[in-house]
């Protein structure tokens, strides 16, 4: 760039009142264009987000622009650091405002949610005490036409728990008291009104000597005999998997399989395409080079769209469920694996290719004998790595309806089942860690 000594600093300074014009005068085209477009754009952004007060420091940048123009006219050049730092500060301040960063004032309800999640994380619902159910039945009567006038006593074996209702006759809405004994101590208990429309009328616990004392209002009005049953979950030796785990573990397996099929599908497509996307194999003729460029473009496009976006589209297209997740992973994976495979092919030794070609082998044989043996270990490593990534992605995909553990998790959250949600989070974390470690070990072995 030629610096003309005859330039006037005054003219430069005056021109620079319009940002960038002074720089153009001094033939400093790059800075001129950046300032001329950048300063108005920055001002427009601040105006757009309603933070006009931040235009004040922008004036400093404008002053810097004039100083720089004057400097340039006199043969010097100002450091851009000052302007860049000012702009950075302005935009950080704007971003802070726009994203509403603040320490939230937690409502009691929100605090409760956070507490429940933390408690759930600390005490995940993994296993529970094995229980045996003790039951005892008592009868009562709603008098009227068709109902017997006297109750026959309930038969029971000696040593079994006893249950009694009083009074034995009741109208709808009357309070009935149930007294029982001979149950397990301090055990959770459900009181159930038997019948075709079984209903839980009370939940309680037995006391420290295995007695039960609970009351409920009679919901029945049709005359007849009614049976009320106490179901006591008596703890016995040993533990069993919790209901949550029984529910979430199959979903976790579904996620792992979802990732596996997604990876397998992208492998099937990416594998043949990757040979067409390897520069060293595709540089022979202009046609080959065009195919190479096309394939690599496809890979780039597929890879640059996030899995989550494909997932949202797939859920819309094929409905909520694991298949939507598989589609999303497969499509994104074609781009990701294809690029890795192609680069693996490009990094092989050329010597064996030359050697096989010189035997009179055709191009397909050259690929089979000189290229494939060289890339197989890397292909395996990349595919494992992809599976590993896909398991992580699959959980996120589940949140938008792609099936698997993620879908289960979002359901727990929607039902405010925080402890179950926390259990699912632990499950995901555990599996991801194991996959991560295992794939790293295997990749090291192969490499």
């Amino acid at each position, binding site marked *: 760039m030629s610096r003309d000594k005859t330039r006037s600093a005054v003219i430069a300074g005056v021109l620079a009142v319009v940002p960038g014009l002074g720089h153009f005068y001094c033939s400093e085209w790059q800075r001129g264009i950046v300032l001329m477009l950048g300063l108005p754009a920055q001002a427009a952004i601040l105006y757009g987000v309603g933070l006009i007060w931040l235009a004040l420091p922008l004036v400093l940048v404008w002053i810097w622009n004039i100083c720089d123009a004057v400097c340039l006219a006199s043969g010097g050049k100002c450091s851009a650091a000052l302007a860049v730092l000012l702009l950075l500060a302005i935009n950080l301040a704007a971003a802070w405002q726009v994203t509403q960063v603040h320490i939230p004032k937690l409502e009691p309800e929100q605090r409760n949610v956070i507490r429940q999640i933390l408690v759930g994380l600390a005490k995940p619902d993994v296993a529970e005490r094995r229980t045996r159910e003790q039951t005892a039945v008592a009868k009562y009567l709603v008098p009227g036409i068709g109902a017997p006038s006297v109750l026959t006593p309930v038969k029971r074996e000696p040593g079994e728990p006893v249950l009694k209702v009083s009074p034995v006759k009741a109208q709808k809405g009357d309070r009935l008291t149930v007294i029982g004994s001979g149950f397990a101590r301090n055990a959770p208990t459900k009181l159930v009104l038997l019948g075709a429309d079984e209903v839980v009328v009370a939940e309680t616990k037995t006391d420290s000597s295995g007695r039960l004392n609970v009351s409920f209002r009679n919901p029945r009005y049709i005359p007849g005999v009614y049976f009320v049953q106490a179901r006591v979950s008596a703890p016995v030796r040993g533990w069993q998997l919790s209901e949550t785990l029984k529910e979430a573990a199959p979903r976790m397996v579904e996620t792992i399989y979802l990732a596996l099929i997604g990876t397998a599908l992208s492998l099937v497509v990416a594998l043949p395409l990757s040979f067409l996307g390897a520069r060293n194999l595709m540089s022979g003729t202009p046609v080959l080079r065009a195919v190479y460029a096309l394939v690599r473009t496809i890979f780039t496009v597929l890879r640059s769209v996030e899995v989550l976006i494909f997932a949202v589209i797939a859920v819309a297209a094929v409905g909520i469920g694991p298949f939507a997740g598989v589609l999303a992973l497969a499509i994104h994976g074609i781009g990701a694996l294809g690029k890795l495979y192609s680069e693996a092919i490009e990094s092989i*030794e050329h*010597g*064996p290719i*030359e*050697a*096989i*070609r*010189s*035997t*009179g*082998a*055709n191009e*397909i*044989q050259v690929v*089979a*004998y*000189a290229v494939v*043996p*060289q890339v*197989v*270990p890397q292909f395996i490593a990349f595919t494992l790595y992809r599976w590993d990534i896909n398991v992580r992605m699959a959980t996120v995909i589940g949140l938008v309806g792609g099936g698997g553990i993620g879908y289960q998790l979002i359901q727990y959250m929607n039902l405010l089942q925080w402890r179950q949600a926390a259990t699912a989070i632990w499950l995901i974390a555990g599996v991801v860690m194991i996959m991560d470690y295992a794939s790293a070990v295997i990749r090291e072995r192969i490499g």
Partner: protein
Amino acid sequence: MLRIENLTKVYPDGTVALVDVSLEVPRGQFVAVIGLSGAGKSTFLRCINRLVEPTSGRIWLGDVEVTGAEPAELRLIRRRVGMIFQQFNLVKRCSVMTNVLSGRLGYLPTLPSLLYRFRPEDIADAKANLERVGLLEKARQRADTLSGGQQQRVGIARALMQKPELILADEPVASLDPATAHVVLDELERMNKQDGMTILCNLHFLSLARRYADRVIGLKAGRLVFDGTPEEIDDARFKEIYGEEAIRVEVA
């Protein structure tokens, strides 16, 4: 058997590798090609089987013109020309046996070869060739477990699978120690004398050319500057080929 007329190669980046080289090689001759690194020796050999496409000039192998041959025809020509490389160019992860068998690919239909299926007579042939280079007991080992000299002998066995008329050897011993170099060159000599193969061999060292070649051609900056018997190379000729500052180094 090999006729080269006005062979010129200019690479796309403008590097002039060969300028107007003409040569005729009768059947059964052992020709050493000498010259400095970058003199065009490798390009010269690779033009003969068109691993490198010549810019201009014509090449005949027997009655068949190599230059201008269609891909299918070119593959038939390449079958007749075995090639041996400085870096051996074996497929490292494959077994020695597979590497040797791959020399037969030009004779095989595509599909069975993709499944790594070879005919029994090819397998017998491969064993015979491995026996010939003294490596039959290594047949099942991975190629990269072998020493350099052994790998080059596998490379020779691979070339032998083609039953070639012409062998192009591109610095076959430049990566080997002097003792191993002689083992490899002795094998080339046997292929030349016993089997009547014509041999074109790039060599760094004049002493090796003297010991093995019937005829020496010298390349300098892509031009043919010497063509004669090894004995004809005196100090003046030597300096012409290798430059004024060169000192003769002998390899035993």
